[in-house]
């Protein structure tokens, strides 16, 4: 069902367009003056001014792995993030935790955990899907590198970015 839009009947001076044009010119001129006199400022001068201090808490920057207060790596290599990742940026190789390890009861951990930051789209689905609260999107947004290899964050780098996160659920502590 098409909607019929009734066209307004224009007065003769409106049909001249000139008043409309003048009105438009006045609006743009006012913006011009406001910007020129510095009354209005919306642009941030990026390399000098940075977002860091202005970033909201929900900001989605580079994904990273975290350890908890007990220095346990939270990730158990369930590979759900690898599964959910829309651009397939995540590659995980799991391994069994050796029996002499302090956290042997957790049984499984990632042997390697790579996130290809060229592929990553910062959607945050990995954080959302993680059943272990192990992967979080941090506030790092300027991810740079001079080669493709450099842009792949390995496990070490991911823990560097992620750091220690406190106050998470520690379900594995109850075991045994």
């Amino acid at each position: 069902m098409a909607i019929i839009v009734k066209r307004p009947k224009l007065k003769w001076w409106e049909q001249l367009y000139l008043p409309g044009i003048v009105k438009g010119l006045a609006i743009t001129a006012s913006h011009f003056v406001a910007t020129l006199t510095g009354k209005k400022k919306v642009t941030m001068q990026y390399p000098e001014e940075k977002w860091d201090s202005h970033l909201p808490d929900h900001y989605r920057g580079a994904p990273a792995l975290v350890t908890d207060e007990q220095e346990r790596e939270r990730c158990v290599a369930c590979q759900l993030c690898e599964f959910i990742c829309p651009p397939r940026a995540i590659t995980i190789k799991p391994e069994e935790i050796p029996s002499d390890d302090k956290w042997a009861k957790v049984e499984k951990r990632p042997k390697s955990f790579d996130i290809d930051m060229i592929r990553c789209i910062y959607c945050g689905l990995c954080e959302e899907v993680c059943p272990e609260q192990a992967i979080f999107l941090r506030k790092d947004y300027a991810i740079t590198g001079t080669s493709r290899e450099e842009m792949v964050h390995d496990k070490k780098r991911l823990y560097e970015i992620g750091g220690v996160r406190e106050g998470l659920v520690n379900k594995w502590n109850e075991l045994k």
Partner: protein
Amino acid sequence: MSEDLLDVQIDGVWHQFPKGTRMIEACRQAGVEVPHYCYHPKLSSPGNCRMCLVQMGMPPRPMPGQDPAEPDEDGHLPISWMPRPVIACANTIGPNMGIRTTGELTESCREGVMEFLLANHPLDCPICDQAGECSLQEFSVEHGKGSSRFRERKVKKPKNVKVGPRIRLDDERCIMCSRCIRFMDEVADDPVLGFTDRGSHTVLTVHPGHELDNNYSLNTADICPVGALTSNDFRFQMRAWFMKETKTIDTNCGTGINITVSARQGEIYRITPRQNNDVNSDWMPDSHRLNYHWINSDIRLTEPLIKDGGRHRMAKYQEAIITTADKLRNFDHSEIAIIVSGRMTNEEMLMARLLKRTLNVKDIDIIPRRGESDNYLISEDRNPNTNGAKSVLGLKDPGASIDALKKDIANRKIKALILLQEDPLTDGAFSAEDLKPLEFLVTSYPLANPTADLADVVFPGACWAEKSGTMINVTGRLQKLNKAVDGPGQTMAPWEILRDLIQALGGGNGIYSSADIFNLLTKEISDFSGLKLEDIGDQGIPFLDTGVTLPLVEREKARIAKGEIVGV
């Protein structure tokens, strides 16, 4: 109405089933899935998980002095529903029975059972190999509460127990379905598993002084509905949802066990048996199941090799084919012999037969490979397609002419040998001295091997998981082999090598796929005439009458006849 068919109403719809059908099977045949854990059609039904509770009803029994109920216009009697549920797995249907798999009673029963099962179940899913194919996960989503009311501490039980060389047990995950115990007892005849302790402290364990080391032990991990029993081999390797599953057959012996190959990104992660009641039921031996690691190993041949001045060099496939054809032309047809492998498909054997015709060669045979039958599923014949060799190559007694061939080579009557998909030096069928007098030797094999060392031209041949085709097992069943992964490097399937060799020697033949060769088979070989590749299906078709039977399948048929198991 036939005598032994009974009227049963399932979820309001009337069906007919043979007398003696279990309620759960009747529901399944009617297209209604009744959730269950302990019930397995190939095992006895103890009815201990209580998951399959359904509401049942029978025609009302008239009170004394009351008239019996009148049937409705379709001849069905009214149903009076029982206030208490019954298990569907161990009860058989009765005349005019009603089954409700939905409704408040059934649903609340399932919810309750799920709540009990989950009360002590650990939240291990992120590290559990069963996750993604776990009945507990599936049914808790479908029938569970969605939240836990359990505020107490969960019972701690042994975790990560090595119950056998190939199996790991996690007792906390176990839901006491006893499928594994029954399997080891009834099918593998090695009853080493059992429950100890009582109540919520019940644990599955191996009998003291025993180990779960039977050659069929990994089947317990397959039938375990949760992640209590897991395979050491597959443990933490890959999650279930990543893998691409290919239905194919096992080639370790003549049984041709139906299997599913699970692979991701060209790498095989596990092999599981696939149900085929005429071949392997639901089972397969561990030795066959675990014999796949070499497929993705470093010792694979990836490039064709040509011997130049005593040393092998890597070559392009096309060059290797041309070199082989050129060299073969230097020999008289009576100086050439072909040995193919009993591990090759019917299609490949046909191509070998065509090569034999092109070269006008007299000698063609396969290398026999025999072992001992284990009286379960492993056949004496360790070649998966000996019957194919009989049928396609027309060999009366495959492998009989190998000794004569050795003599001919020693006498220099045979100067060139085409040896496909075999490594007889390792197998012991030939010794290096046997092959030494040869002037020209072509081999193909998936792995680097000592025979290839002697060869003038070596092709990297695709292994069973990298090609498609058909094979005939010991019972004479024609089954399909399907390609699961791509071969590494310039690996070629034997049929491709043979086709290109024939082409280089004699011209084009218009064959582009294994299916094309099957069409050729139906024209060339009388046994195959009239067959279509589509007709074979996933389960194969009876093809030859060999009179050979498989012990495990025969025993199972006997148990079905006795009514011990359902067996569908």
